[in-house]
């Protein structure tokens, strides 16, 4: 009787998750395994299955002497190293400000969150025009305040990546601010009272109460921001197509090029796995590191 009941439970359990499991197996698990296999081959999709040729680690070795790959990787690292800290600090400061109580709290939150919900295609197009080097409003403004030789933004190989970085920070502040706000609201008020009784000023409160209590939130924001920023694609695709030269090419963009413009599926898959390994190792490193700085 007991056994039968347990069997019935197992059956209904599996029935509930069945659609999800089937879809997931076909659309995610199977492709992951397949991608692993083709990353060890040289295979041009246009040649059909006959063009399939195992090359062992060939793809993984040749990428390090491929300038486009190494440049893209460098750009990814630079992009992440600048975007993530700036986004985190700005979103934390805004969240703290909003949490301390301001007039028009809701409209302000709304305005800052707006870029996050807008399609990356639309905002990249808008920023692309704003950045227009000869006539765009940004350089119009810079001229107006007396800068005679403003950057050429997307048209310059030095400034193209910073341009995309600025836009990405702008687009991501809203999301992280919302997460920080939720974290701030979870800090018990008595902690501040206690700190005040001990004679702590606002600065001491911030460094000894707010920051430590927020560390799990910061940990979450840090990991998701890094993962997210390694996968930047839309902005690059729309605004610069990786250029000028290779100055704004990133891994996702180069993988797309190799896979869907050259149909070199093996090489593209191998690079996609490198991207995954980077994301995985950043996450694992952080899991290790969190013991040192995250208080639960």
């Amino acid at each position, binding site marked *: 009787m007991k056994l039968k009941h347990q069997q019935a439970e197992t059956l209904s359990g599996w029935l509930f998750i069945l659609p999800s499991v089937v879809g997931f197996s076909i659309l995610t698990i199977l492709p992951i395994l397949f991608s692993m296999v083709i990353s060890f081959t040289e295979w041009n999709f246009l040649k059909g299955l006959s063009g399939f040729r195992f090359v062992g680690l060939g793809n993984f070795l040749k990428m390090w002497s491929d300038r486009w790959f190494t440049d893209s990787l460098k750009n990814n690292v630079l992009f992440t190293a600048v975007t993530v800290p700036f986004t985190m600090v700005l979103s934390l400061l805004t969240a703290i400000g909003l949490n301390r109580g301001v007039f028009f709290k809701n409209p302000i939150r709304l305005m800052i969150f707006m870029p996050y919900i807008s399609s990356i295609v639309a905002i990249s197009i808008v920023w692309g025009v704003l950045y227009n080097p000869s006539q765009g*409003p940004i350089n119009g403004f810079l001229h107006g305040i007396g800068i005679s030789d403003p950057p050429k933004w997307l048209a310059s190989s030095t400034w193209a990546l910073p341009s995309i970085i600025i836009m990405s920070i702008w687009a991501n502040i809203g999301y992280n601010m919302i997460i920080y706000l*939720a974290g701030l609201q979870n800090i018990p008020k008595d902690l501040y009272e206690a700190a005040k009784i001990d004679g702590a000023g606002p600065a001491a409160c911030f460094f000894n109460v707010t920051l430590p209590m927020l560390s799990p939130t910061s940990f979450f924001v840090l990991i998701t921001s890094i993962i997210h920023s390694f996968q930047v694609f839309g902005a690059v*695709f729309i605004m610069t197509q990786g250029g000028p030269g290779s100055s704004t090419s990133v891994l996702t963009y180069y993988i797309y090029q190799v896979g869907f413009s050259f149909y070199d599926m093996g090489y593209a898959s191998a690079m996609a796995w490198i991207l995954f390994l980077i994301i995985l190792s950043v996450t694992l490193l952080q899991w290790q590191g969190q013991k040192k700085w995250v208080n639960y």
Partner: protein
Amino acid sequence: MEARVQTSKRERIKPKEAMSPRSMQDFVWKLILTVILLAFAISMVLPFLWMISTSLKKPIEVFAYPIQWIPHTFQWDNYKEVWSGPRSFWIYYWNSIKVTGLTVIGTVMVSSAAAYGFSRIRFKGRDTVFMIFLATMMVPDQVTLIPRFILFNYLGIYNTHLSLIIPGIFTAFGTFLMRQFYMTVPNELSEAARMEGANHFRIWLKILVPLSKPTLVSLVILSFTWNWNEFVNPLVFLNKKELFTVPLGLTNFIDEAGTEYSLMMTAAVSSILPVIVLFLACQRWFIEGVVSSGVKG
């Protein structure tokens, strides 16, 4: 870590005090903080304001400096051209509505059923499967994109809307969001129903689903937004223009519009309008969804 956005009820209940020097000081601080944050918030929406204003300008006025925030005459014809011209937006809108609508319906059904299985029934293998779900969330899309492209070609759904709808339905996100909520529902509720002989299907449909309405709303809104904005999948899986969804249609429009910047902005405004309207109307659910899915802890 459980996190919910709380509306500041505490502040509202607080009785009005007379202006003591202390509260006077608080008021001044609040005012200063408001000015700083408001200035920041306004600078954040400037690109949107510029987009809207430019969408109503003549081409010649686009780059006039100082910026003319309110156009001399509103060029509503820009909208007429985007919506009715040879590159009409209607077709993209219709495609997006179809793809997004079917995807959202599918996601809601599949994920709330799976969430029930993962949270309310104990059975062998459950936690292993759930861990696999969790682990695959870290795998970037680029890994699965190429095999999916090959698979869809093989199945004959490449260049159809199914190639967007099917992968859109099966995302781990929806399952997580719903599971988060189901875990908070006390067991006594379903136990009582069990005693009266209800099976799991009935408990799910009659008790859990109605209870989870707010979370369902969040899921619907978030997945609508993401699917409406989705760019990479349509880019890879569609190449017939008559199948394009709004973001892809927008890039196509831009390619053809060349340097007609005001028309570009008209198209951009048209593309994000539904999402902005939805967000303004349902921001509470939107933000609650973002928070409860984000702060998993």
